[in-house]
């Protein structure tokens, strides 16, 4: 009696988990019109959007499987920052501001989820950038990598020297067009402080040239006709519209506090990624079908349970992917498909053990129970080894990390579905008379007495 209760309890727990998983899995955006307007309400939960306005109720679950760069196409780059000229105590803040400035520059591309991270490898300070879905990587590289140190210089003696007016004194830079030539120019608007400096500089240089210097290169050296007040200036250089836009973005975001150098770049076209997804999807479906057919032919009734178990497994995995925001890469897909094979291994070990116990003359009910109990040690030991390997692979990063995470998740979920799902279902039918046929278990006969 007690045993029976436990089985029902487990079934209840299983159904509860499946229900939660299904809610997460389901595509989600529900809008309901209710007859009477209620209080306007908006929830601020992390994944769930719940909003009522007038007589509309909006519900949206914001969970999606994220696709990695190799699947949706895009670029990842690693830059190394040269902090040799920055004192030790300011290095951390320099990296922080590098990150912020690069983020601002990248925002110009309007990508959905760009990532800019800083990392350290030995004494090397790195910036890792991921630009999913970007089409013009070369432009991005130009935009990110340039220091964009703007400086106004005046002529003294034989050369141009600094005036102290730099990009830091800018309030805003915009691209405008010269009404006469229709060429792009950069219009600069100084801060009040910068405007004062500019007025002084132009005041003492009337009739002379001043130079606008960008990263050590003079891009324009106009002649000053009169003192300029008001805090506006124009850069007319030889640039096309793309270059002008890039420069405006860079000037607005600010100059990089230290020069950076690209040391790794990987770009994958979107078509290649889509092709990978389609092909792995086909491979996955065929693989799952092949496995199910094998299990049904070889293990008959037990095979039916492992097929159900496989469906549960897929429901759970999908839910976990969404819940943990696992980024799916090609490596992750391989891990997923491989873990299906591994979860079936668990079933095989259990089912073979059940058949062995049946052949050994155990009663039907105890054979079904012993199958799970006695197969456990070898299942535990072999999966522990795989988990150790996953843990090691996790440290490798990149595509390999995706593989390791998914494989480890798959191993754990596989054990869960077999020992919670399949086991409970088999327990439930073990009392039923009609299942007690030797053919169902591919054995000669089933003992009647305990």
């Amino acid at each position: 009696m007690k045993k029976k209760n436990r089985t029902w309890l487990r079934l209840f727990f299983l159904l509860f988990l499946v229900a939660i998983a299904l809610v997460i899995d389901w595509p989600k955006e529900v809008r309901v019109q209710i007859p009477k307007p209620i209080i306007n309400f908006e929830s601020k939960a992390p994944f769930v959007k719940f909003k009522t306005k007038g007589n509309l109720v909006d519900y949206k679950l914001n969970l999606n499987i994220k696709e990695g760069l190799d699947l949706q196409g895009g670029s990842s780059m690693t830059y190394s920052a040269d902090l040799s000229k920055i004192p030790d105590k300011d290095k951390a803040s320099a990296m922080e501001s590098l990150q912020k400035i690069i983020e601002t520059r990248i925002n110009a591309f309007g990508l959905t989820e760009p990532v800019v991270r800083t990392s350290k490898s030995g004494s090397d300070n790195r910036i890792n950038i991921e630009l999913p879905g970007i089409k013009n990587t070369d432009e991005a590289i130009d935009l990110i990598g340039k220091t964009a140190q703007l400086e106004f210089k005046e002529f003294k003696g034989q050369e141009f020297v600094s005036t102290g007016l730099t990009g830091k004194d800018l309030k805003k830079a915009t691209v405008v067009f010269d009404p006469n030539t229709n060429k792009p120019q950069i219009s600069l608007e100084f801060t009040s402080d910068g405007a004062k400096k500019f007025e002084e500089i132009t005041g003492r240089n009337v009739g002379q040239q001043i130079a606008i210097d960008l990263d050590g290169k003079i891009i324009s050296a106009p002649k000053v006709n009169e003192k300029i007040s008001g805090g506006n200036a124009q850069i007319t250089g030889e640039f096309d519209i793309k270059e002008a836009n890039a420069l405006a973005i860079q000037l607005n975001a600010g100059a990089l506090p230290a020069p950076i150098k690209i040391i790794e770049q990987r770009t994958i076209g979107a078509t290649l990624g889509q092709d990978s997804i389609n092909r792995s999807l086909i491979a996955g479906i065929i693989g799952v079908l092949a496995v199910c057919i094998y299990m049904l032919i070889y293990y008959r009734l037990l095979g039916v349970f492992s097929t159900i178990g496989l469906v549960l497994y897929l429901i759970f995995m999908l839910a976990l992917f969404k819940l943990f925001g696992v980024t799916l890469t090609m490596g992750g897909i391989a891990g997923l498909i491989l873990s299906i094979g591994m979860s079936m291994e668990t079933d095989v070990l259990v089912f073979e053990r059940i058949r062995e116990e049946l052949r050994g003359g155990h009663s039907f009910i105890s054979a079904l129970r012993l199958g799970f109990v006695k197969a456990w040690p070898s299942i535990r030991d072999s999966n522990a080894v795989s988990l150790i390997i996953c843990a090691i692979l996790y440290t490798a990063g990149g595509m390999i990390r995706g593989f390791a995470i998914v494989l480890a998740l798959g191993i754990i979920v596989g054990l869960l579905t077999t020992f919670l799902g399949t086991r409970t279902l088999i327990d439930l039918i073990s009392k039923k008379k009609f299942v007690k046929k030797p053919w169902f278990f591919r054995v000669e006969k089933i003992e009647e007495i305990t």
Partner: protein
Amino acid sequence: MNLIKYRKWWYILSFIIIIPGTISLVLYGLKPSIDFTGGTVIEIEGLKDKVKVEKLAKDAKFENITLTETGKGYIIRSKPVSEENHKSFKAELTKNNGATEVRIETVGPSISKEITNRAFISVILASILIILYLAYMFRRVPKPANSWAFGITAVLGILHDALVLLGIFSLLGHFFNVEVDPLFITAILTVIGFSVHDTVVIYDRIRENLVKGTSETFEEVVNKSLVEMLDRDISTSFLAWIIVFVLYLFGGESIKFFVLALVIGILLGTYSSIFNSASLLVTWQNYRDKRHK
């Protein structure tokens, strides 16, 4: 069925499998990918004229160029290409030849050094942890067996699999330009996992049968356990194998050789677990028995 009796033949068979790959490993070594050496890989589509592709790359000052044909175009490998050179190459490629660049990867020397170190560390760490785990797991095997024998023979089986796999990829590298990348290291570790799986299932049964304590000799117990587990070892391996095989046939291009390594490795792992590891266990035991007499 007595599988253990023929163990000499299994050893000979394993040697025959190991030899060609090992010779290739010694003579040609492996072909490391840019992840380990640093360099640039560019995949282009829409231009199938090899001479033209080569000229384009040379004009853009690419160094050490090698070309591999794909169905739709070429994969160009070279030393790390600067952003400027890459730009001029790309402009030429798209404007005057109507082709497209679908993938570019550049790995600088500092990154490649790190990746190489990390790969070494993970392989060594995995081996050590597995030996320790196995020795711990079988620490209480009843007499006359020895727990270290279980751990070490299992690892010998794994080494066999890893060596054959490395040999095959050395041959593939020499004849078909197949490269060894971090994913390949992953594949080897995964195969090791599978191989240990199969071995553990058999060894677990040996342990169980030893605990039961019969009048059979050690060799008989091992053979009995092996035969009893044969069905499920083949069944489990087949399931894993069929699924990676399907992935190899239909799956994406970028993980093709990773999956190929798994397809070969799972077969190897099953073979070595059934025919080598358990046999070695008996050989070890017999040798000890003889010495004690």
